[in-house]
Every structure is written in structure tokens, then in C-alpha cells.
């Protein structure tokens, strides 16, 4: 095929311009800033200033620990739930499919601020509907926001509610791209539905499951709005502080851009590790 460099780049130019200014340069710049002391004027090159602090900062390790804890529990639960939703929504036995789809997909359009407000009220100690319901069935109410474990649970519940349907949409599209004759052949061979799920559906869906998991991990890793708004600035006592929230506080409240950049690059390091794992998990078997 003939090369059409000039024409192609004319179409790409505005997009690449935006990329260069607002992404490419920041990616480089962020790396450089992480090696500078940024609370002096002018900024000063000090390679170990931020990174040295990071290694010895209990607040950083607290945020890292909380973030990883949310990741390890919330992402697998959500992905499993999304697979269940997708498979059941895809079932030919389902009536009123539109209603069920609406129920699970509706949170996809709800903004983080709006749902954070609702979850805060729902889990309120004295007046929250959740505690009222617990009380009405004879269970003790829970002080959701004053203790770390229940506060973390609220965040995980909220994030799962918000994003499970989104992943289910993606997985459902994947399910519908699996050719039906595979299942027909399996049914003729009297393979049970459950076995079909584990030996046909899951392996064929694996690349999409991994894709969903990677995007969810990277999204959860940067979690900011939920600990900021639902659990009141990462409370109680930093118990729900995440890397995203620590970055916000360091970068934009303390205006410590250098340190915040070091935190950002730690996240990038984690993301690269996770992406490499994705490549390894979805590689073609030799």
C-alpha cells in the first residue's frame, strides 16, 4: 500500500498536539519533578529528597497498604459479580431482560459525587437507612465511619456498586461474541451447563476478564473521590487514606509537587507491573 504521510498526519495533528502538550510532556515532567525539592524558590535538583522521604514515610506506607487492601478484596469480588451478572443477563431463560439490565447498568451513569453523598447518608450511624434496617431485624447498628474496618467496607461496597455493571457490559459483549455452535456441540455431547461455563465460557472470556481486571486495578489504585467524600478525607484517622488521596493532599493541599510526583510514579510502577502481568496472562500458548 502507498504511504500517505502528509495526509495521515494532517488528520492526526490536532490529536497528537493535545497528546504532546497535555500527556507526553507531563509524563516526562512528572518524572523530573520527582527529583526536585519543590517547596523552595526556585525549585532545586535534589535526587534523593522526595524518594528518600517516600521510603521512610509511614503515611505513604499506610496509603499503600490501604490501597492494596482495597485492590485485593474489592476487584476480585467485583469481577466475579460482573461475570455472574453478564452470564445470567445473557441467559435465554431470562424474562424482562431490559429491567434487569437497567438495574445493573444504571450505576454506570451515576457520578462519583452524587453516589458518594447517597452512600454517606445511607451508612450514617444514627439516621442511616442501613443501620435502621439492621435494627429492624434485631441486629446491632454499626458505627460505619468511626472504625477502620467498616469504613473500608463502605468504600469497597460503594466502588463495587458503581463499577460492577460497567464490567458486566464489557463481559456481556464478550459473551455475545462467542460462537453459539460451540455450546450446541457441547449440549449434544451432554456436557452440563456448569461444565460448559467452566470449560468453554471462562477460557474464551479470559482475555476480556483480564482486561476488565487490569482496568479495575488501575482505576482502584487511584481511588480518590470515595475516601475524600464518603469517609471524610480518608478517615477515621487515615484508616481509609489511599494513594490517590495522599497524592491530592501532598500535591494540591500542601503544594508539594515533587513529593506528589514521586507518589504518582510509584503508581505508574505498579501499573506497569500489572500490565506486564496482563501480557503474560493473555499470551498465546506456545
Amino acid at each position: 500500500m502507498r504511504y500517505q504521510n502528509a495526509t495521515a498526519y494532517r488528520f492526526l495533528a490536532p490529536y497528537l498536539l493535545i497528546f504532546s502538550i497535555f500527556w507526553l510532556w507531563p509524563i516526562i515532567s512528572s518524572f523530573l519533578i520527582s527529583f526536585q525539592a519543590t517547596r523552595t524558590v526556585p525549585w532545586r535538583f535534589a535526587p534523593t529528597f522526595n524518594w528518600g522521604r517516600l521510603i521512610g514515610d509511614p503515611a505513604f506506607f499506610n496509603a499503600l497498604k490501604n490501597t492494596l487492601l482495597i485492590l485485593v478484596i474489592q476487584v476480585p469480588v467485583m469481577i466475579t459479580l460482573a461475570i455472574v451478572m453478564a452470564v445470567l443477563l445473557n441467559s435465554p431463560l431470562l424474562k424482562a431482560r431490559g429491567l434487569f439490565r437497567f438495574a445493573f447498568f444504571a450505576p454506570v451513569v451515576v457520578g462519583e459525587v452524587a453516589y458518594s453523598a447517597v452512600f454517606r447518608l445511607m451508612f450514617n450511624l444514627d439516621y442511616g437507612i442501613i443501620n435502621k434496617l439492621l435494627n429492624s431485624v434485631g441486629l446491632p447498628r454499626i458505627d460505619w465511619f468511626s472504625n477502620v474496618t467498616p469504613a473500608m467496607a463502605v468504600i469497597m461496597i460503594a466502588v463495587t456498586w458503581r463499577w460492577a455493571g460497567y464490567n458486566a457490559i464489557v463481559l456481556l459483549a464478550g459473551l455475545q461474541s462467542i460462537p453459539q455452535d460451540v455450546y450446541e456441540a457441547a449440549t449434544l455431547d451432554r456436557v452440563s451447563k456448569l461444565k460448559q461455563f467452566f470449560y468453554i465460557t471462562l477460557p474464551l472470556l479470559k482475555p476480556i476478564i483480564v482486561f476488565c481486571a487490569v482496568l479495575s486495578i488501575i482505576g482502584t489504585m487511584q481511588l480518590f473521590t470515595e475516601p475524600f467524600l464518603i469517609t471524610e478525607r480518608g478517615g477515621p484517622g487515615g484508616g481509609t487514606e489511599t494513594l490517590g488521596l495522599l497524592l491530592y493532599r501532598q500535591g494540591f493541599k500542601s503544594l508539594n509537587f515533587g513529593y506528589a510526583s514521586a507518589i504518582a510514579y510509584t503508581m505508574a510502577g505498579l501499573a506497569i507491573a500489572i500490565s506486564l502481568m496482563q501480557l503474560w496472562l493473555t499470551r498465546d500458548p506456545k
Partner: protein
Amino acid sequence: MSSRSSSRRSSARLGRSIALHLFLTPLALIWLFPLWMMVIFSTMPDRGIFSPSIELLPHGNFLDNVNNLQRDTNFIGAIGISVSVAVTYTFLSVLLTSMAGWALARYQFFGKGVVVAIILGTITLPYAVVLIPQFIMVARDFKLANTWVALIVPPLFNSLGVLFMRQSFSMMPGDLFDAARVEGVKEWRIFLFVALPLARPMLAALAIILFLASWNNYLWPLLINSRPGAMTAPVALGTLIGLTKVSWGGIMAGAVMLTVPMLVVFVLLQRHFVAGIAAGAIK
């Protein structure tokens, strides 16, 4: 014999169908519950929200709550900013991503592999990495804080949109475009008047997703447009959450005003919505 086994099979199907609905119905109700509570809270007076009784049905206080919200923060003004920004952003972003998608789908050019690698690479790059320099550049160097440009332009770079449009354009038959070329039609005219009209359903799907992303965007507008009067609606609402002397009924009315229009769009255009989200992942 055969009729008996088929009736046994159909009763097994019925049993499975019932089990499916018995499992899914409570799950669906749990999933809708926070949305239902959002609506209920938005119609209740504040003293009703903070009372010991369980309220599961709407009251009549929605307009009072909107008034309280307008008193606490100029929410109507913020909605105006959000709508204008989302509309402008969606238009520009659809144009930019489809131009780029068109180039990647339809031309061979030097550096194509690099461009594709960049776009794929940025999907898994945490946004946190670009956030700080973006802020420094836009606020300090360009002095654009609290402007519309700051809200609209930096988020224009969008990887999934380009991949989606590349996919859409590459599935179109090439003969059509070649025929136009034989007629001597210029490339940008082919793009505008042949390719884009053909891609209308895909453009609709992309536009909905981009509009929603802009409408719900919180962190970037919080950082860059934090002056009262320049805030988008989610940012204005966020400033109230956690304050003590504030109307919670008002906050909930704001949440409803942000959410319900999007839910209506979702119901009306579900097909486009789902296509747009799914297309980001399925390549």
C-alpha cells in the same frame, strides 16, 4: 417416550428459569436501592432525613430542597457551566478522535506503529502521573485556572475513543472511498461527507460516553476550576458534602439533578450506551 422426555426437559427449563429469577430479582433490587434512596432523600425535609423512622416513599419537598441547594451554592449556574462544557467537549473530542481514528484506519504512514503503541500504552497509564504537571502548566504557566479552556482542552486526549473510531472506519468497505478518490474528491471531504455520515451510529455511541465522562468528571475540575462561580456542578455539590450547616435534602436534590437526566438518556439510548462502553474493550 419422546414426548415424556421433552416435557421433562421443559419442566427442567422452567425450574432453571425460576431459580434464575429468584436469584436475580433480589440482586437487582439491592442494586437499585441506592438510586431509590437518592430520590427519596431528595424529596424529604432535612428533619425527615435525620429522623429515626424508615422512609421508603417520596415526600413533597423536592423544590424546597432545590431552593436550599441554590442558597448553599449557586447550583443552577454550575449546571449551566457543566452543560456548556460537556457539549463543547463532546463535539471537539468526537471530531478529534474520529480524525485520528480515520488516519489510523485508512492510511499507511511512517510512524503508525508508534502512534498506535502510544495510544495503547496510555490506556493503562495512571492518570495520576500526568495530573500534577498538567495542573502546573495550565494554572501557573498558561494562567488558565477557572476558565472553560482549562476544563475542556486537557481532557481532549482520549485513547479508547480513537481505538473505537479506528475500528469503526476500518470495517467500512474501501471501494466506497476509492470510488470518491477516482472522482477527484479531496481526502478531507471524503472524511467529512462520506466516512462520518456512514459512522453515525458509532459517533452517537462515542458522543454519549464522552458527554457522560465530562458531565461526571470531578478531580480535574475540582483542581482547576475551584473558584465559586467557575465550578462545574459535581464540584459545587462536592464542596457541600461533609459540611454541617448545610441542607442534606439540597445535596440529594443536586445528586438527583445530576443523575436523573443521565438515567433518562441511558434508557432512551441504551443500545448506543452499551455499544460505546463495550467497544472500548472488544478489539
